């Protein structure tokens, strides 16, 4: 992986608050143009890590490099950050509010006005442009805040729980928008504890728990590495194969199919061959990929 392919590089970062270690010796890389799932239970250290990336706090140890350089004010203007704790000025008008956040990111007012119109239209909020923020519903203000993170056209977008508080229709709408942004070669860090959403959106994931890295890599590879030992089968007959303890350790019976847990060195192809050989009628034979949720729970529980 070449250096300019990497948007963000976190190296051996540790952050302590008094006796409490929020992040311990964390290292990872995010490749440009990918959606990176930053996963972990509440209190794992996600927000602390993100705060260090956006330069709100400084790591006690280790270093963070953004677009191949140290974090400087100029570099920070290339990040869009949607924090988990949403906040807008309640009494400000929608347009003024967006202008202000754009100005804080160094966008000229002329350019900002153009982008504000574009994004209000895209997020279906145009008619609210001159209204006060208090008049907006919760979902609308969330979309407004999302716009505020996009106005300076960031190359790296950090979304901390972007769907919380949105209704299902708006969640789908936001996913569409995020997919669109991804297609423009932007890097997206997507922090969540909702595995189902992460599973659908992310290319790569990093799972942290209790301040430490648990798992990282491409989502497909991780799932593949976890999925090789479980098979979903629907068949009639073949009991002697299923009862062979050298092949199968455990069976969970569902209504009309079975989940087979294979032994360490059993090969699924051998199981299929033996089943057919025994004269069983096989109507379904499928390798099961564990859901991200299972992997998450599995990893978090162990610790």
């Amino acid at each position: 992986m070449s250096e300019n392919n990497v948007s963000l590089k976190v190296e051996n970062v540790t952050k302590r608050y008094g006796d409490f270690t929020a992040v311990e010796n964390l290292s990872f890389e995010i490749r440009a143009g990918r959606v990176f799932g930053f996963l972990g239970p509440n209190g794992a250290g996600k927000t602390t890590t993100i705060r260090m990336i956006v330069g709100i706090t400084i790591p006690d140890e280790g270093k963070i490099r953004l677009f191949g350089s140290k974090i400087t004010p100029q570099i920070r203007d290339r990040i869009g950050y949607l924090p988990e704790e949403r906040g807008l000025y309640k009494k400000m008008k929608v347009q003024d509010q967006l202008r202000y956040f754009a100005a804080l990111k160094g966008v000229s007012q002329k350019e900002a006005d153009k982008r504000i119109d574009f994004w209000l239209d895209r997020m279906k909020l145009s008619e609210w442009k001159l209204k006060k923020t208090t008049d907006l519903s919760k979902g609308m203000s969330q979309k407004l805040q999302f716009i505020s993170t996009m106005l300076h056209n960031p190359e790296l977008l950090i979304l901390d729980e972007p769907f919380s508080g949105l209704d299902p229709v708006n969640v789908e709408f936001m996913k569409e928008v995020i997919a669109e942004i991804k297609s423009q070669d932007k890097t997206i860090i997507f922090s969540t504890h909702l595995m189902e959403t992460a599973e659908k959106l992310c290319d790569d994931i990093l799972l942290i728990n209790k301040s430490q890295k648990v798992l990282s890599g491409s989502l497909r590879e991780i799932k593949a590495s976890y999925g090789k030992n479980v098979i979903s089968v629907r068949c009639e007959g073949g009991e002697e194969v299923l009862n062979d303890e050298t092949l199968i350790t455990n069976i969970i019976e569902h209504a009309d199919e079975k989940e087979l847990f294979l032994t360490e060195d059993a090969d699924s192809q051998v199981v299929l061959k033996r089943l057919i050989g025994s004269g069983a009628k096989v109507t379904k034979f499928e390798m099961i990929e564990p859901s991200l949720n299972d992997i998450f729970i599995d990893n978090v529980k162990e610790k």
Partner: protein
Amino acid sequence: MQKFLAVLKREYKKVVFTWAFLITTFLMPLIASVFVIVPMFIFSIEGDKTRIAIADKAGSISKRLQENLSPKRISEKARKAAKEQLTDLNASQEEKMKRNAEQLGGNFEFVPYNAETKSIEQIKKELNAQISEKKLDAYIIIPKDISAKDARFEYYSRKAGDFVINSTLQDALNEAVRSQRLADADISEEKLKELSRKVAFDVKPLTETGEIKEEGGSFWMAFIVAMLIYIVLAVYGQAIMSAIVEEKETRISEVLFSSAKPFELMMGKLVGVGLAGLTQLAIWIASVLILLSFGFVSAIMSGAEITLPKITASMVIYFFIFFLLGYFIYATIYALIGSMVTNMQEGGQFAFPPIMLLLIGLYFCFAVVRDPNSTFAFWVSIAPFFAPIVMPVRILSEIPPFWQIALAIIINLVAIIGLTWVASRVYRVGMLMYGKRATIPEVWKWIRQS
């Protein structure tokens, strides 16, 4: 710098473009001008005259009473009474009094009536008849023996509720009767006046070098200025605190801190709100100056003697300098408190100490005005926290040596730098601490750590 300006612009607009600001800024001078202009109009309106008949059975009172009620006499009397209370009348007071007197005196129209031979019943009957014919508004019956102990002076009036007329009449009658009694006892009024004259007690203020100082109404100016500074500092300090608490409570600070340096954010806020305060003060002071000139112009036109309060350009400049010093001291303290607390209620409790400091400063002003050159006045007028209120008062009462003013400015600048240093440290940690109020030991740690 660009981001600092963005913050400054927003904060300034946020304060200035609100109804509350526009109303207080422009309505206050308007209300004040109403208080100056409306009385002028009212005093120029002539009321209906009270037609009064004097049924003088003694025969000697009527002439004296009419004389006492003449505009000239009333005005002279009012002036004398005021001189006894105040050492120095200012122009507008004098002007007002003169108008008052003219109006009062011009308010009586005497209807001739000869009562000497008539009985009281007859007088009442005849005059009541005149009143019912609307030829008369009131009459007064003066008994034959004015010196008798049970002598009663009866006043009948359709306008008996007009207490101003009643008391004017009573005073004039008292005096007329007294003069008559003196005349009866062979004591001339001039003699009595000469004997009962008050001593002339003339206060001449001295400067430190022993020269007689010209005094120009600066005493009350000093108090107004002290109050003005106190109110503006308290109001804008609280405004800073609530703005900071809002950002903390709504978590806007999280986004802000990812976009700009905490120091830029804090200073942008302080300077922006400060400029808004300066705008308001400038408008107020300009309108006060305009009002004063209007008031005095009208006074000059009516020929009154003028003593303008001596306000020099340097006084105005010092006023703004010390206002700014005070603003930055107290705004920084409020910013510090705002970033420590979690909501406005908590902020309200913690707002007490700076208000206390301001109040103490205000009370010191009383002592300083009484003796602007005392050692005490020197120390409190250069002390941090107090100087921004006390020094302008001292400058107005009696301008201190320049080195003292300079010393006060330097000491308070140093205080501001120190406070800003502390506040910015607390701000950048405190703004990201949610849900829990920071304790003093914690805050102390933040200050030392970063």
